[in-house]
């Protein structure tokens, strides 16, 4: 097992997010303070509606908090304008979504190229696909791939830019247990081999066993956080 450095990648301070739907206000984040450390595999756990997706979106620069601060290392994300956030996403962040979000009109390789086209120092698309074990299926369109394969393309796409952080929103949510485990082991090996700080949000409590650090969410607040002294390997997990 690797040493966990004391180096925080994300720091949030009293983070609040309120959605105004016109008829009523929905508090999604209600004063969140947490730190995500470099090279760690962090799991944000909680039921749907607990605010974990909102937090991930804010960490990834897809959304802004209503109040509070988010620091990416020394960079204050809350102070960035649209252009700044775009630049931040382009340079530092890789995303993996529950529904893969592949562009259906592009092949696996081309979906990865979407990222390598705009990244300053990408790895070759083929290499990224090899890393997720899809070297053989690079020229297939999303419709020709299984759910697990599609999610692995999405991971390859996320890591191809060599991001500092990999943000995964329910990466196994649409997958069966067996396929989900395959995807988790890809994420785990990326984290181990490339040292990419990885944040996974899930409502699947089984996944917390493989995390360095776990945050429990409910009603927009962090209820509990702890580190895992003995991480389970992905293959040991099932649900």
């Amino acid at each position, binding site marked *: 097992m690797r040493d966990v450095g004391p180096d925080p990648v994300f720091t949030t301070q009293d983070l609040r997010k309120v959605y105004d739907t016109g008829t009523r206000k929905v508090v999604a984040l209600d004063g969140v303070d947490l730190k995500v450390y470099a090279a760690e595999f962090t799991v944000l756990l909680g039921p749907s509606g607990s605010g974990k997706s909102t937090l991930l*979106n804010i960490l*990834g620069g*897809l*959304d802004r908090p209503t109040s509070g601060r988010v620091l990416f290392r020394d960079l204050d994300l809350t102070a960035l304008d*649209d*252009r700044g956030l*775009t*630049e931040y*996403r*382009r*340079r530092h*962040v890789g*995303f993996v*979504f529950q*529904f893969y*979000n592949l*562009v259906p*009109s*592009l092949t696996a390789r*081309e*979906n990865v*190229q*979407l*990222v390598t*086209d*705009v*990244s300053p120092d990408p790895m070759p698309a083929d290499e990224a696909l090899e890393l997720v074990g899809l070297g053989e299926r690079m020229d297939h369109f999303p419709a020709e791939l299984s759910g697990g394969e599609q999610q692995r393309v999405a991971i390859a*796409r996320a890591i191809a*830019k060599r991001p500092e952080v990999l943000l995964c929103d329910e990466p196994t949510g649409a997958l069966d247990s067996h396929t989900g485990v395959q995807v988790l082991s890809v994420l785990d090996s990326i984290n181990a081999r490339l040292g990419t700080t990885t944040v996974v949000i899930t409502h699947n409590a089984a996944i917390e066993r493989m995390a360095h650090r776990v945050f429990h969410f409910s009603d927009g607040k962090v209820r509990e956080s702890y580190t895992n002294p003995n991480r389970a390997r992905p293959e040991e997990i099932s649900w």
Partner: protein
Amino acid sequence: MPMPALWKKLVRDLARLWAQATAIALVLAAGIAILLTTFGMFRALDATRAAYYERNRFADVFASVRRAPMSIIPEIEGLDGVLAVEARVAGLATLDLPGRKRPAIGRIVSLPPGGTPRLNVPVVRAGRLPDPSGRDEVAVNSRFADANGFRPGDRFTANLNGRKRELLITGIVLSPEFIYAIGPGMLMPDNAGYGILWMPHREAAAAFDLSGAFNDLSVQLATGANPQDVIAALDRLLAPYGATGAHDRSRQLSNSFIEAELTQLKGSSMLLPPIFFAIAAFLVNMVMARLVTLERPQIGLLKAIGYTNREIALHYLMLAILVAVVGIIIGWAAGTWLARGLTRLYAQFFTFPFLIYAVPAGTYVVAAVLAVAAAAAGALRATLQAARLPPAVAMAPPAPPRFRRTLLEPVFRRLHVSQPMRMVLRGILRWPIRSTLTMLGYALAVAVLVATRFFYDSLDLLLDATFYQTNRQDVTLVLADALPETAALAEAQRLPGVLAVEGTRSTPVELVSGNRAKRLGIEARRPGATLSRVLDRDGRPVTPPKGGLLLTERVARQLGVGAGDTVEVRFLSGRREVHLVTVSGISRQFIGLGAFMDFDALHRVLREGARVTALHVSVDNRALDAFYRAVKDMPKVTAVLSLRESLRTFRDTIRKNVVIMNTVNLVIAFLITFGVAYNQARIQLSERSRELASLRILGFTRAEVSTILVGETLILVLVAQPFGWLIGSAIAEALARNSESDLYTIPAVLEPHTFAFASLVVILLAIFTVAIVRRRLDRLDLVTAMKTRE
């Protein structure tokens, strides 16, 4: 470097949307093609004419006189602003052509003693110009030669002012003066029946008793000279010689026909292409809005990856521009082809020594820029929407469209409107702007058909009024001079086969009201004339009252006078007196300008005995040949106009063009209807596929589900009809107004069957188009449709 992945997406998106993209591209292409043919041909014709005029020194000012001595030429040359002067003898002659029963009309134009004219220089196509000292030699215009199969060396007979002469054709020529060669009283050029004859001055002068004199003057102006000043000076100088008033190019017959055509081309180029570009922009808007909605998650993803808003906006904008590029290529090809067709059409009427050069390159660029601009404008809203979409929102599925209870709900209940019908009606009301624009699209398709087909009804009215109501004579004999009425009528009566004869007196005048003036001929007939009549505004025959003047609508409008007003009549022949005459009424006449007076009243004012300048004759069909033979030998007849022949030529020409025009208009209406209906139905299907699949699962039949898809189109296309009729009528009025010139007016006549035809075509096409899309419903995979995540 490989193609960026985003570009690959672009190309594949375009391939996936090919049917919708094609529909839009075709609408754009139609706009481009029409722009190229109208504006392109406008510029081509204009430039060709200008080059021809300059190379062959087409005169700037023209004047005709009864008889002026050559000795005043130096004085004219000395006028301020005059660069060159050509004095000629001009006149009409009856021609007896080998193998032709009906006499043809010849316009004699003299060539200067030196041989080659200084102005209005003819282009010799074959042979040579007549020898200035030769006898009975002429050069003829090429159209006349072609139509009659003449070559240099051929001969024909002419009745020159009462003297029969056999003329030898020495050459075949073209002239900038006769690009459009239309004979007196003709509606369309009759190449076989009307010839221009260039003849040495000495001989022409001898034939028309103008030795040492001229009756026709052409003047070239110095650069910067004001034509109005020169015209005024010429009028002063020539007044004693029976001048009928000098005029500039705008009243030169050939030039004014080209001018009328140019005006029409320009008008069409301003009116029609914008309609197509607007429709294309709307269609792009519709398709792009749907695309951006469908691709929300992908937009979110691109933003998450780090693509900038600008890159994403540009991505969608490029899609619209690629569609425009396809449209441009098709439009350029179609426009080039159509322009070539139009050039051929022009070649029937206009004679140029060099080809009308095809559409100028600049017009291609303008058309392309406009097409791209239209597509980009259409894509703008969706593009901005894609750019502005916050990434976190883009990733989440869109909220279902908010349907609200409208005021119609109680109506639905009262009328027991079925559920599928309610879905249709709510769908229309939910997107009021889109529904309105779609409806407007159909309305424009109807309008295009109404606006162009009105010509046929108008031409029917025009022909009926001109040939069956106004000019009912078979033949008009134009006399060389104003002859005593009794003798002229008696002589005509003696011709074989003559059933009835009526005399008419025509005299050139200038009508003045305030600062407006108009030159034309006043015509006078005996009351009760039944062959050639005047119609009032409602098409009823009317007799000019004693002492009053009847003006055609156009003349009255141009002078700004109405019934009861007084105009100043300046006679341009005889004693050249000025009289004040009351406008007693307004008449309807579509061809030419007209003013009418009572026969006796005119002669009282002129202080002359009863004289006639033309005879309208009704001839027994069986004796027509004998009648023509006799007329060819009548010394005082300078032109024989066969009204029947005019009508036939006119009908033939129109019929040929009707087929072309009809086809083009149908294609245009088809493109608009198809473009709108296809896109609307595809978007409907895409938006409602889950809904429709749900209904199918609930047990609705295919037919019932289809109602929803077809229903919206049907309702919108039906609602569009009255709007289409209104817009079409407005465009028809504009086209009719735009076509108005001193030569003719095309009335805007809209008959019910025009509206019915337009509506039927558009409604059927819309239904047919939706039926194509409807077939996709049969292939709707119920399970997949339900699974599709929006």
